[in-house]
């Protein structure tokens, strides 16, 4: 394991400290927690937005704390959902009297811990609403199982719900628009290499020199299919088509595109993939309203990408374009 760290058991604490040290005028650390909150939170009259999850997905989630996006982010241990007491602290820190909205990725751990925190917060008289993001089409959407995972599409939920909250939206209105994003966002990923949880010390899986994993998640879990590496164009085509099979995006529709790097992928490769994705969309008569290329939801030092498509209406367009001062999503 080659990492620039001090103690594998302290990486999250060290990171959070380093984050605060980078943006002391923008964020503050809730004492005795791994919760980062906007300096000015709680903001009276504004619904508070809380997201979070395991660490190792940087810039998610702290990078999205800022005016126009989240009010607080809860950092769990690496790839491990944060505990309910931590989430509760975040909720309490950002409640400005209008309630708190939770953005949760659909993993058993995240759902359980956030829901327990929500119950505790309600017991303390704080109104809580939530959305569960499940954009990963690599996993089957079934009510008998855990269902689809939440991956990079979550960032667009942060952005749009954040803009709604910033513009004075009520808890109910934020819930509505967040649900709309979740209904219209789909993603799928692939990887060339695995990654190593610092405390585990060895990679989660290994791929041969000529292999890739299709349908990878963001926790170093193996993907859905292992096969020989193909070209960027073929990878872009496979992922884009899988998404387009899952969600009806018609000729003339407007969408946002996110080409997300999983950690070790050179940005060059993201743009190479982007070219093909845009070509496919163009050929389908789909109009790309905005494109985001970069590292938005990573998996430590995994080499790989995910593609996210979000179908937009006028409301979503406006909210997507609204200003954001979060360090990892400026617009």
């Amino acid at each position, binding site marked *: 394991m080659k990492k620039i760290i001090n103690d594998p*058991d302290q990486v999250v604490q060290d990171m959070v400290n380093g984050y605060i040290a980078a943006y002391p005028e923008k964020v503050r650390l809730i004492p005795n927690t791994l919760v980062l909150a906007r300096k000015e939170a709680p903001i009276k009259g504004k619904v508070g937005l809380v997201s979070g999850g*395991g660490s190792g997905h940087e810039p998610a989630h702290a990078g999205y704390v800022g005016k126009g996006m989240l009010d607080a982010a809860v950092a*769990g*241990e*690496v*790839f*491990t*959902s*944060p*505990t*309910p*007491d*931590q989430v509760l602290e975040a909720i309490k820190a950002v409640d400005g009297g209008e309630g708190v909205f939770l953005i949760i990725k659909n*993993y*058993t*751990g995240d759902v*359980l*811990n956030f829901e*327990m925190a929500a119950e505790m917060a309600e017991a303390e008289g704080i109104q809580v609403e939530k959305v569960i993001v499940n954009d990963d089409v*690599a*996993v*089957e959407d079934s009510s*008998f*199982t*855990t269902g689809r*995972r939440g991956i990079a599409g979550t960032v667009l939920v942060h952005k749009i719900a954040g803009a709604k909250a910033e513009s004075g939206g009520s808890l109910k209105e934020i819930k509505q628009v967040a649900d709309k994003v979740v209904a219209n966002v789909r993603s799928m990923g692939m990887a060339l290499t695995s990654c190593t*949880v610092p*405390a*585990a010390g060895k990679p*989660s*899986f290994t791929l041969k020199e000529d292999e890739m994993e299709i349908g990878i*998640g963001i*926790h*170093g*879990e*193996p993907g*859905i299919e292992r096969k020989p590496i193909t070209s960027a164009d073929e990878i872009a085509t496979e992922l884009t088509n899988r998404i387009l099979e899952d969600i009806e995006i018609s000729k003339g529709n407007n969408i946002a595109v996110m080409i997300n790097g999983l950690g070790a992928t050179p940005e060059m490769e993201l743009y190479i993939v982007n070219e093909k994705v845009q070509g496919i969309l163009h050929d389908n008569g789909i109009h790309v309203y905005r494109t985001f290329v970069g590292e938005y939801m990573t998996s430590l030092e995994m080499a790989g990408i995910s593609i996210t498509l979000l179908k937009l209406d006028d409301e979503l367009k406006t909210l997507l374009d609204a200003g954001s001062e979060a360090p990892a999503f400026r617009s």
Partner: protein
Amino acid sequence: MELDVSRTIKWIKLANEKIQMNKDYLTTLDQPIGDGDHGINMARGFQAVVTKLDEEDYQEVSDVLKDVAMTIMSKVGGASGPLFATVFLKLTNALKGEQIINQKQFAIGLNEAVSGLKQRGKATEGEKTMVDVWSPIADLFQTNEEVDHSSILQTASNALEKVKDMMATKGRASYFKEKSIGHLDPGAVSSYYIFEALAEV
């Protein structure tokens, strides 16, 4: 089988020892069909539990179990954190007020624990989770007047055997569908250690 404060503490400490010893193994089990953190989560959480137990003086078994539950809740994280916290919290509530827990009381507690676990995780038997160890053990206590150590061990290891051949439909392992068959479930294995420890104290 009877549990008093000191035996309960011994139980949990022995469970912790087994978890620490098998930390890497549990993590390895979580890699092919999960995210490779289960051993790390359990080791961190149970270490904190033992530290907590050493700090306090306990009058009642349920007080011990409550601290176990609350420490797990705030230190384990992931899916297993709230689920293990739930089982110990349900046990706590069922056993409240008793100095010495007899087998019948423990059986009732386990029953409550399994119901709470299934409700919290929306899982039932056969979905390749820790439920598939906790549920047969609860049944064992429910249906036998005299549960001895070897029957606990026997039941727990039979349960693990079956878990291996199940297809996961809950938790992370469910993403792998058929491919999850043939793998052990890490949370089932850590649950096994908890009962192995119970059998040994």
